[in-house]
């Protein structure tokens, strides 16, 4: 028995190491590869302040680095939000996108942007996250209402998709009536994109996402009990109602942060946790929460690299790429049941 435990521990450590290496490698690749190639050596020189000429340094410091950092943070947030929702609904294909939570957040953010940008008022990152959070909670509220009436898992997902469609339709409507100048901006964002990240954005999202991550990690023990089923969780002393409220709020904050900065991104929330779970061969929250985060980061860094480079100089929307790699995973999950 002790041997088995040791084996498991070393497996978890190996997966952590792999995910860590994967994140670092793709992070560096994301910084180096692009329309202007930056060699690894040059990058080190920029950091040692040797100077390399304005252009590459600006590209690195103002465009690529903040973007890669945002992908890392938001990818992790998306994956963790997916894992939380899967735990909450006991449904392997729940996620912020399929349940319409991303679309709800998108709708409110679009409304805010059109309203304020039309009046030439700058919207802060914090306000965007807050708006997205309200939208996410709105969708979540509908899904929760419906989940009380619907017991079938697949029907719940169908309802989520419908809520998503309604929100997207409203967003489209709003975007159509927006000023010309805003449309391009809004349109890119509403399809999902990591482009145009600034350091200010990164700072805000880092604070929000990492704080939420930490809070979720602290809940890993009651989450583990919750995954056994409500009756058993209650019997071992878990305050179910409080825990459920926490899961709803934290998963909404995570989804909202992603939508506020990068728009709705599909399938990462289902695919990344599932792949990580297969790798770890456990669904225990204490291992899954950090691995999920890293897994989402790797997945998104990989997808964003492709989105930027596949048809360069045209940039693909991130959801196009995540769908190509994520949707088959979802099909695999569904087929296996």
């Amino acid at each position, binding site marked *: 028995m002790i041997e*088995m435990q040791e084996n498991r521990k070393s497996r978890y450590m190996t997966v952590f190491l792999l995910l860590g290496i994967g994140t670092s490698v793709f992070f560096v690749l994301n910084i180096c590869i692009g329309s202007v190639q930056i060699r690894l050596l040059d990058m080190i020189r920029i950091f040692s302040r040797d100077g390399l000429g304005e252009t590459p340094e600006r590209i690195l410091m103002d465009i690529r680095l903040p973007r890669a950092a945002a992908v890392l943070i938001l990818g992790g947030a998306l994956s963790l939000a997916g894992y939380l929702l899967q735990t909450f609904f006991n449904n392997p294909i729940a996620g912020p996108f399929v349940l319409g939570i991303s679309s709800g957040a998108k709708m409110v953010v679009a409304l805010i942007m059109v309203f304020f940008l039309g009046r030439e008022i700058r919207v802060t990152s914090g306000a965007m996250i807050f708006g997205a959070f309200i939208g996410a909670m709105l969708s979540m509220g509908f899904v929760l209402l419906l989940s009380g009436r619907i017991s079938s898992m697949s029907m719940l997902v169908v309802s989520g998709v419908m809520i998503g469609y309604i929100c997207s339709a409203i967003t489209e409507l709003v975007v159509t009536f927006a000023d010309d100048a805003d449309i391009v901006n809004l349109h890119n964002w509403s399809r999902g994109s990591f482009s145009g990240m600034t350091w200010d954005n990164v700072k805000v999202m880092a604070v929000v996402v990492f704080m939420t991550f930490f809070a979720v990690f602290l809940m890993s023990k009651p989450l583990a009990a919750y995954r056994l089923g409500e009756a058993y969780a*209650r019997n071992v002393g878990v305050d179910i109602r409080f825990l459920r409220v926490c899961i709803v709020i934290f998963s909404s904050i995570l989804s909202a942060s992603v939508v506020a900065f990068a728009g709705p991104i599909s399938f990462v929330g289902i695919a990344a946790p599932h792949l990580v779970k297969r790798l770890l061969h456990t669904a225990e929250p*204490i291992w899954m929460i950090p691995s999920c985060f890293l897994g989402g980061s790797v997945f998104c860094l990989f997808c964003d690299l492709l989105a930027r480079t596949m048809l360069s100089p045209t940039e693909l929307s991130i959801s196009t790429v995540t769908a190509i790699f994520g949707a088959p995973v979802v099909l695999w999950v569904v087929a296996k049941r």
Partner: protein
Amino acid sequence: MTNYYFSTKKMCVGYDGKPLIKDMEIYLPRGEILTLIGPNGAGKSTVLKSIAGQLRLLCGKVYLEESNLAEMRAGELAKKMAVVFTEKLRAEMKSCRDVVATGRYPYTGWFGGLSKEDESIVDEVMELTHITEIGGQEFERVSDGQRQRVMLARAICQEPEIVVLDEPTSYLDIRYKLEFLSILQEMREKKGLTVIMSLHELELAKMISDKILCLRGEYVEGFGTPEEIYKADFMERLFGINESSFPGNTKFLAYIRQMMEWS
């Protein structure tokens, strides 16, 4: 009242505010086995769920010794009462041993890591319930009978003073049924474990129980020792069958008579 470990006062149970059974008064000294019997749909599961605090009481109170169960802190109650319900325990990618270990939840630290002591309790309990050999197998893949034994091990692992079990032996073959019940008896003798459970097997209930509670839908048909309960007309009152229910079937008749003749 002080003599009883478990008691209920005017307990009403039911769903959605509609009382199913009213004014239940149950008294059970420490270390006794109470079995709920009754026809399907008589409310056995409802009563057990209410006792375990899983279903809100419509009125009345449940006491463990002097303390009102509704006012006890969840963590405190978890160390006193364990449950085995018919609801499936979800154990994605968990081995049977992992499932047993989840019983240690009330005793572990903030992140739920198992100490050496926890591990040895888990192993001990698995030995006691004869599931050591299947410890490494995935819980979701073992047979229903094995699963029920794992669930019992999990409950014992929680080191409770009282355990509430809903039809815990339904999937077991006769050998494991007896073994399962003998484990409960052993726990009762060694640790003074109090047991409240429901059983469908009348003869087993008669054999193992100190007290029997007969449920019949809206009321309690009887509460007492097996001698008091298994009397001449209890089969008729409880299940609506008597010696003329199966005319000409002498074997059934013999069974019904055997059930009704205690000692």
